[in-house]
């Protein structure tokens, strides 16, 4: 039929956050009913190639719009430039493409998405407020090299600075629960006086909380996370976690699709950074 086709390029759908995002987009497709959605995800977080392959396939299939959450802020620039040159409307969401790379490629593209750094700072500030100045904290980082990991770490560092926290250590657990559990257990051995933890996502926060339980320090160490996944709801409720950050992933892709369709229907091209909502979630928000 003649409905416009929107190609949605996601990150790893094995990640609950993106899975929910896709679900939101599908619901959106059903609700609007005036376009066809084709979604592709990756095998893993760093699987840049699959994304590029997907973009190339979408160009082959001559879709009308590509809506993409890039796995790498630079590698995706050339293929997206080809897509734009092929007359496809491209919307970039979730992670912003690199300005310099865009400039070099002669690509002008707006970004629709949340402020990861600002979000992390919300969580970090909540921790700083709870613990007070000089409190000893550690950061559990996401994948080294991942843009959102880097942004969140910067946000946490902003809070450390602003709240005058004492940062004892900052290490990666590659977004993983088990690794975060192991890592934090060992950090706790090296620094028995840790008071707060900032985890770059909730999966890692789950592992941290369990390590705290196992060490018998429940209630003595405050944890903040990021993403607001369902599994942390009980922890927030039991106050084993202080806070997490919701960036409304469910709506993020749908919003981006809306923007793309707007342009397709003859609307004004997007410009700059179209910020989407973020919100700090604490036990007060859990029913």
């Amino acid at each position, binding site marked *: 039929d003649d409905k416009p086709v929107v190609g949605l390029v996601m990150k790893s*759908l*094995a*990640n*609950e956050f993106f*899975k929910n995002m896709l679900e939101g987009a599908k619901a959106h497709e059903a609700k609007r009913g005036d376009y066809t959605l084709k979604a592709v995800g990756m095998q*893993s977080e760093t699987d840049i190639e699959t994304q590029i392959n997907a973009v190339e396939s979408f160009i082959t299939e001559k879709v009308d719009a590509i809506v993409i959450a890039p796995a790498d802020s630079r590698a995706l620039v050339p293929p997206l430039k080809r897509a734009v040159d092929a007359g496809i409307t491209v919307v970039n969401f979730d992670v912003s493409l690199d300005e310099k790379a865009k400039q070099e490629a002669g690509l002008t593209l707006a970004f629709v998405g949340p402020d990861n750094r600002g979000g992390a700072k919300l969580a970090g500030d909540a921790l700083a407020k709870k613990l007070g100045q000089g409190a000893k904290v550690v950061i559990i980082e996401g994948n*080294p090299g991942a843009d959102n990991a880097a942004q969140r770490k910067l946000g946490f560092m902003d809070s450390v600075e602003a709240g005058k926290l004492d940062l004892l*250590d900052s*290490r*990666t657990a590659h977004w*993983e*629960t*088990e690794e975060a*559990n*192991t*890592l934090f*257990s*060992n*950090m706790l*051995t*090296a620094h*028995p006086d840790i008071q707060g933890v900032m985890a770059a996502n909730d*999966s890692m926060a*789950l*592992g941290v909380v*369990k390590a705290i*339980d*196992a*060490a018998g320090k429940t209630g003595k160490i405050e944890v903040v996370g990021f993403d607001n*996944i*369902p*599994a942390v709801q*009980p922890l927030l409720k039991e106050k084993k976690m202080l806070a997490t950050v919701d960036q409304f992933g469910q709506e993020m892709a749908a919003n981006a699709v809306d923007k793309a369709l707007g342009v397709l229907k003859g609307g004004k091209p997007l410009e700059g950074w179209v910020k989407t909502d973020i919100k700090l979630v604490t036990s007060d928000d859990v029913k």
Partner: protein
Amino acid sequence: MNAAMDSTDIDRSPAGRADFAAVSKTVLREAGIGLALVVLIIVFSVTTQHFLTASNITNILTQVTINLVLSIGMTFVILIGGIDLSVGSVLSFCAVVAGTVMTLPGLDPALAVTLAVISAVIAGIGFGLFNGFISAYWAIPSFIVTLGTLNIARGAALQVTNASTIYSFPAAFNAFGSRTIYGVPVLFLIALLLVAIAWFVLAKTVFGRVLYGIGNNEEAARLAGHNIFFYKIAAFTICGALVGIGAIIYMARLNIASPIIGIGFELNAIAAVIIGGTSLSGGRGSVVGTLLGACIIGVLANGLILLGLSDFMRQMITGFVIILAVILDKYRERLTKA
């Protein structure tokens, strides 16, 4: 000569020339990679402050447990000359199955946990049977079969959960996961029990003997009347069952089951087995070596974090130490041979 079989009885033949020398040699040989482990422990005890504390030892044992359980199963598979790349994915699949069962509404907690354990083990056995059957029936390298299964199990785990994490297990189950006895985690004790059983099976039983035989010379074992097909399937199935148990242990320790857990676990398990002295081409090795191999990996990960090195340095040093441990083992081997 294979270590497991040897260790079990020191030459009692009438000729019995060697006594003390033989015993100490046997111990050294059995200890296998033990020397490297001792060196590592000494290094970390000297260079870090907290390494030899009770709470850190508890940590290490906790952290070793899952890999150890998977490595036991992997030992069976590698002994017959196979390999299982699917353990990480299958663990994830077993965990989400067990997690689903455990969180079924309206089930008595004790019953829920029991059913969950059973279903995890059955799921693991199912994949083990699949791996074993395909590789034995069509004589396909298990590397490629289990690479396929890796994708199948992961895809299936994602499909059944729709990529969501399962949580909120019965409180008693969670508590059990962190229980310790005199500082030794109960989960580790379970793993140790499994090591003992595996050692017994491999070193003492006819079944184990034939597994070693097949790993060494499949044709000779076949012509001696043994049903190779059965034994191959059995090895993979045992591995699968242990993956099921590993999934339960994962859940008890971390309180979640998710389709994205277990990525890369296979490499850790294989590393433990090989560092432990089992030959990748089969027929030679022991599960005691595997225990030591798993401990080396665990101690290394723990000690390097305590050392406070950067993440990147840590990764590089991990690489070097894995290689060094095996080189060291080669020198020990020469020593005991002389």
